[in-house]
């Protein structure tokens, strides 16, 4: 084993008194003081997370959108510039290599954000799929549009930019106000065309799952209105060497708004309450999207893409499906615990915790389809004790808009 890596913000976390954990090969803050306080801050004010361990890939060049249509589950050629979408990297047999967020930053410029632990898997999947991506053929001998995209070599390229990038997530109901107050952050998008002018924008203009370019102390920042907490919030992509100053500036702007730095412990309970899957728990190579409730993410209408043939075949009607389970009391089921109907094991818990927001235990679990209807009374085997649990629709928590 090699020592876990640290992010560009490591000394900031140390100075803030963080406890660390090894996550996906990275030494990351698990909490700064209290994970419950950090969780509450995100629900009621705001929290600031270092998520620089996540992997970033730039997919650029001619037909970049077409290539991603082929390589991933979604339809990226139709994604408007400045918008983002949740998607999946599938295996040939229709399982899940990883879940990703894909941003279209320009006509031929996409950013793919993957999980830290799947950096190599996603990187090699994109590289392999790029090698297999057919070069275009001209529609006729003379391309009257004057496009030379079919010329050999006019292929998109994939670049792993994880090592030079930092990613900071500002999440919570006060995130927008805090972002607008960050000293030195200029919400000005550089001109797209050579003779264009920079375009000023405001936080309020940035819709959910939208991204825009900005600048911080002379460094480009991509501001994305996305997150993994179930709250409003932003993810800020910046060059790693400029990240510490941005982190400091956001913390300073957030001080009067109740912003707390927050670790992975809070991030996990927040995403669980929001019913969001985590790779290795709710997602994996042997789990198909529909089982995890992600059938809508797969654009089956596309011509062809990796995984389509397998997913077009009839699916096993007995395949377990992901559900939410709620119980009373304070004893939470954890990943790996059995789900029972009478004396029969009908499923397995993938994530579970005592919900800090709701005050009762919640869990996600894969269960037999016959037991998946909301309201079904089941039980959890919590280290030998049977705890009653009821199937419920996800998410457990939904913010007021």
């Amino acid at each position: 084993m090699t020592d876990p890596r640290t992010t560009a913000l490591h000394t900031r976390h140390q100075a803030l008194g963080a406890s660390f954990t090894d996550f996906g090969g990275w030494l990351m803050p698990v909490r700064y003081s209290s994970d419950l306080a950090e969780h509450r801050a995100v629900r009621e004010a705001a929290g600031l997370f270092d998520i620089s361990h996540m992997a970033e890939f730039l997919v650029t060049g001619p037909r970049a959108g077409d290539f991603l249509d082929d390589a991933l589950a979604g339809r990226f050629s139709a994604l408007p510039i400045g918008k983002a979408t949740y998607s999946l990297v599938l295996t040939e047999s229709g399982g899940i290599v990883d879940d990703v967020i894909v941003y279209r930053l320009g006509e031929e410029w996409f950013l793919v954000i993957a999980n830290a632990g799947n950096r190599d898997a996603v990187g090699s999947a994109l590289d392999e799929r790029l090698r297999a991506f057919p070069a275009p053929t001209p529609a006729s001998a003379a391309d009257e549009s004057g496009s030379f995209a079919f010329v050999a070599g006019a292929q998109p390229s994939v670049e792993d930019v994880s090592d030079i990038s930092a990613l900071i997530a500002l999440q919570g109901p006060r995130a927008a106000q805090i972002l607008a107050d960050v000293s030195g952050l200029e919400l000005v998008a550089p001109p797209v065309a050579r003779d264009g002018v920079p375009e000023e924008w405001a936080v309020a203009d940035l819709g959910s799952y939208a991204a825009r370019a900005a600048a911080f102390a002379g460094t480009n920042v991509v501001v994305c209105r996305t997150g993994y907490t179930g709250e409003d919030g932003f993810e800020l992509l910046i060059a790693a060497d400029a990240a510490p100053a941005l982190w400091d500036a956001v913390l300073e702007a957030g001080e009067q708004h109740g912003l707390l730095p927050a670790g992975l412990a809070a991030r996990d309970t927040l995403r669980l309450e929001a019913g969001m899957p985590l790779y290795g728990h709710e997602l994996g190579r042997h789990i198909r999207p529909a089982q995890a409730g992600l059938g809508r993410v797969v654009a089956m209408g596309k011509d062809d893409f990796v995984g389509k043939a397998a997913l077009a075949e009839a699916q096993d009607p007995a395949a377990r499906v992901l559900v939410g389970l709620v119980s009373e009391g304070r004893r939470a089921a954890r990943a790996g615990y059995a789900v029972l109907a009478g004396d029969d094991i009908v499923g397995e818990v993938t994530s579970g915790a005592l919900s800090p927001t709701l005050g009762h235990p919640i869990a996600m679990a894969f269960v037999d389809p016959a037991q998946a209807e909301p309201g079904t009374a089941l039980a959890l085997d919590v280290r030998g004790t049977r705890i009653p649990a009821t199937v419920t629709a996800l998410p457990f928590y939904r913010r007021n808009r």
Partner: protein
Amino acid sequence: MTDTTALKYTAEHEWIALDGDTATIGITAFAAEKLGDIVFVELPGVGSEVSADAVCGEIESTKSVGELYAPLTGTVSAVNDAAVDDPSLVNSDPFGQGWLIKLTVDPAAVDGLLDHEAYAKLTGGQA
């Protein structure tokens, strides 16, 4: 303030304070810090018998489950209901208000436990 250098310890991160034949037991600040915010504590009933090194309770944080091992063989003479009602006491005052159980024990058995120096060594000087 509890004088933590006068306590006895186990490798399972319990502390033991002996007064006559009554041993008061809790988990160390090091263990509480590692667990994170403690949200659930389950303790044995008063009058029950516990055996040294056997699991006698559970301590859960939002992130994980920790087991409470009986450091000594004995009879439970008291449990800290305040910590059951408000498990955050174990985080905020692990050596004081966050104590967990009291056992009636053979005082001589305490000699087999770790002293502060040995426990500090075990935790790399963090306790």
